[in-house]
């Protein structure tokens, strides 16, 4: 009976504990929110004034009380993230001397805390901060490492691209779209390093696929020869990535490397090859595409019709409409924007 009483008392206490926790959390959050609101109301206009040149960054930084330093940094970060160029530089000049408040977070045992602090340092820190950020490329947490890489893949930070590329394999689980956009974020100044990376067959396929996409986003004309050279005997995903790159920056001389691939056994390679031929091929390629268009994959049918349109092969496109089935529909969709 005593055990039962203890168990019941325990359960009741558990309820009270949870309910108490809810109420305490509500009070604490309420207090924190009102404190932040107060500080935002005070500092946001001052920081916006700073951007407009109403005040001096150093003088304004001197006005920050140590008790409010963290909140002010948060406010400055939220504003600076949306700015570029000189406007961001003014916020940086104000915030950089105050960043010591974030330093302990960089050494935190929690990856999420380190990652957040890195973003703040990246956004508000001065050039010296870049070296600090680069040390986090080798952080034990892939999240922190990626945040460091993203922080370094910014315009004016081309000198770090080699370091990032060296570690690209660490980010293999992240989506290729994210990685390629990150790399392209550095700008055309990083293209030479990326071309070298793409050309080196010792580098991991996933990394080379991301780099090929990044070069496509940058529309780097010099990447076309490198892309064409990678095609023979490469991994299918890399072939498709190189074909997509060629569809953006390729020239007529690359068509010879592309043509055999419209008969590839993998549909995604076939459809990428057809798209590329549509962009860089010649009038003769239209006949080739027309003959190969009868494919089991709807993607190949769609891409074939589009490629014929890109090659201004209206006769072949019109002939497709007579074939029936997917090809007919794909041709109508291309010719008339889908209108039946």
């Amino acid at each position, binding site marked *: 009976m005593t055990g039962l009483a203890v168990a019941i008392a325990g*359960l009741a206490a558990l309820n009270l504990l949870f309910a108490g*926790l809810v109420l305490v959390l509500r009070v604490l959050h309420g207090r924190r929110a009102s404190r932040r609101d107060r500080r935002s109301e005070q500092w946001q206009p001052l920081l916006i004034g700073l951007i407009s040149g109403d005040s001096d960054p150093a003088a304004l930084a001197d006005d920050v009380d140590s008790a409010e330093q963290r909140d002010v940094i948060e406010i400055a970060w939220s504003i600076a993230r949306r700015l570029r160029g000189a406007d961001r530089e003014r916020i940086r000049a104000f915030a950089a001397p105050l960043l010591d408040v974030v330093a302990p977070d960089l050494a935190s045992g929690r990856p999420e805390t380190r990652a957040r602090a890195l973003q703040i340092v990246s956004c508000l820190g001065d050039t010296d901060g870049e070296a600090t950020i680069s040390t986090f490329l080798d952080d034990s947490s892939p999240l922190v490492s990626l945040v460091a890489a993203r922080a370094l893949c910014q315009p004016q930070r081309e000198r770090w691209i080699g370091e990032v590329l060296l570690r690209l394999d660490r980010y293999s689980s992240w989506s290729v779209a994210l990685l390629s956009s990150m790399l392209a974020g550095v700008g055309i100044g990083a293209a030479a390093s990326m071309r070298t990376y793409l050309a080196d067959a010792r580098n991991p396929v996933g990394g080379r696929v991301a780099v090929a996409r990044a070069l496509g986003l940058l529309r780097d004309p010099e990447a076309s020869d490198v892309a064409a050279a990678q095609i023979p005997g490469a991994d299918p995903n890399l072939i498709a990535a190189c074909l997509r790159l060629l569809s953006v920056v390729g020239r007529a001389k690359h068509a010879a490397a592309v043509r055999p691939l419209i008969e590839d056994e993998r549909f995604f390679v076939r459809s990428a090859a057809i798209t590329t031929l549509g962009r860089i091929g010649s009038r003769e390629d239209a006949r080739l595409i027309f003959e190969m268009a009868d494919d089991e994959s709807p993607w190949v049918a769609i891409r074939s019709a589009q490629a014929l349109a890109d090659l201004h092969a209206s006769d072949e496109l019109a002939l497709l409409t007579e074939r029936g089935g997917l090809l007919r529909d794909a041709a109508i969709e291309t010719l008339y924007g889908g209108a039946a």
Partner: protein
Amino acid sequence: MTSALTAFNIFIIIYFVVLNGTYLLLSFTAFRSLRRYMDRLDSLQIDDLLASSGGLPISLVVPAFNESASIVPSVRSLLTLTYADYEIVVVNDGSNDDTLRSLIDAFDLEEVTRVPTSSIPCAPVSAVYHGVRHQNLTVIDKANGGKADALNAGLNYSRSALFCAMDADTILEPDALARVVRPFLEDGSTVAVGGIVRIANGCRVSGGSVEDIRLPRNMLARFQVLEYLRAFLAARVGWNSIGGTLIISGAFGAFRRSVVAEAGGFDPDTVGEDMELIVRLHRHCRDRGTPYRIEFIPDPVAWTEAPERVAELGRQRDRWQRGLAQVMVRHRKMIANPKYGVPGLVALPHYLLFETLGPIVELLGYFAFALAVVIGVASFGYIVAFLAVAVFLGSALSVAAVALEEISFRRYRRSRDLLTLLGTALIENFGYRQLSSWWRLRGLVSAARGDLEWGAMERRGLEVTSGGPISHEAAKSPEAIRLPNAGVSSGPGEQ
């Protein structure tokens, strides 16, 4: 007889303790996971991430059956989502009202030819329409085949690598797509991601978005708010942290299109097509040794209207339970099978023992308890123990769910709403939980009969004029025979 009854009663208490104890454990796991997740959200700013990646193109597939009253505002709301690259594919599933005409007129649609990019079997498609003003809007008109069939048709005609399955009457928060896509960016092997479904009853809805979040006045809807918090923030976050996500709500879930098409799309022969697909995706990927991730994340929000009438709620719960039972039978080979990892060894056995068979044991327990009291064989200690386990342990789960909401999203800003939720956590143990078990038991019976009907729900509608409360105009007739998208097709799923 007496000793058998006593033994059974002891078994029932142990069952309740294990059932609720498991959920309490999941709540603790969820507590830790949620805190980490909130920090992670902070550590990778979603807008920066999307701005730098350009976002992944996604198709929103919206099945609609007799939705003429609500489809136009719903689509208008979807057109305002803050996402760079998305298309909306509305599938008119053989409506016998003006759903299609309303769409054609409101969005200036023209009939087009569009090539399907996959060939998942579905009822015949009679026409495809495209928005003249809204280039990212497509409407597919097809013969009636149910929600799963309509989703398959939408899948066939969508062009993006990702698609989001949702209900026509669900309101997505403006950044919901951006948030639900995030795990696909973070991990290229992600095949499915579910967001949270919250109850919009009582909230102020304007211009297709929820503007003021309040608790519903209707007691039944209030109970469901608590249920949804328990199910999504405690159970699903908890299951997700150990890799055991088995449900992504049909009201809002994003998928990698190629994998779903490869697995055969949605199954039209079940009323729990959303859970069935997730379990099948686990099976499909593990059978082939493909690395994959199925995630539940609590920050992308979809708002839905909960039933406020006992009969409607009963039908909904009946359907959910039927769906669950169908999934258990269909995928019985996965249960306790080490080949299927956490989903097979932990999650499915749990769903079988506590979710599928739970109502039978619970109701038998209540009956045996009442019998023992009436014939005078229940000791005082037993009565107290039974009530304590049934009431205190049950309410502890609900209060813990409210605590999880408070450490994470704090959507209910009014302190009065918070206190009301805490009070509701206690009250729901007296009547509502038992009623819920009864509905679920009925669901098991109809599953045994092979019933595939969806049941009807009278919609009061979420779209209202600016500033007003939720309209109480009936948007759908209760006699609709086959309703493809009544509420969340598989709701909380965890008690």
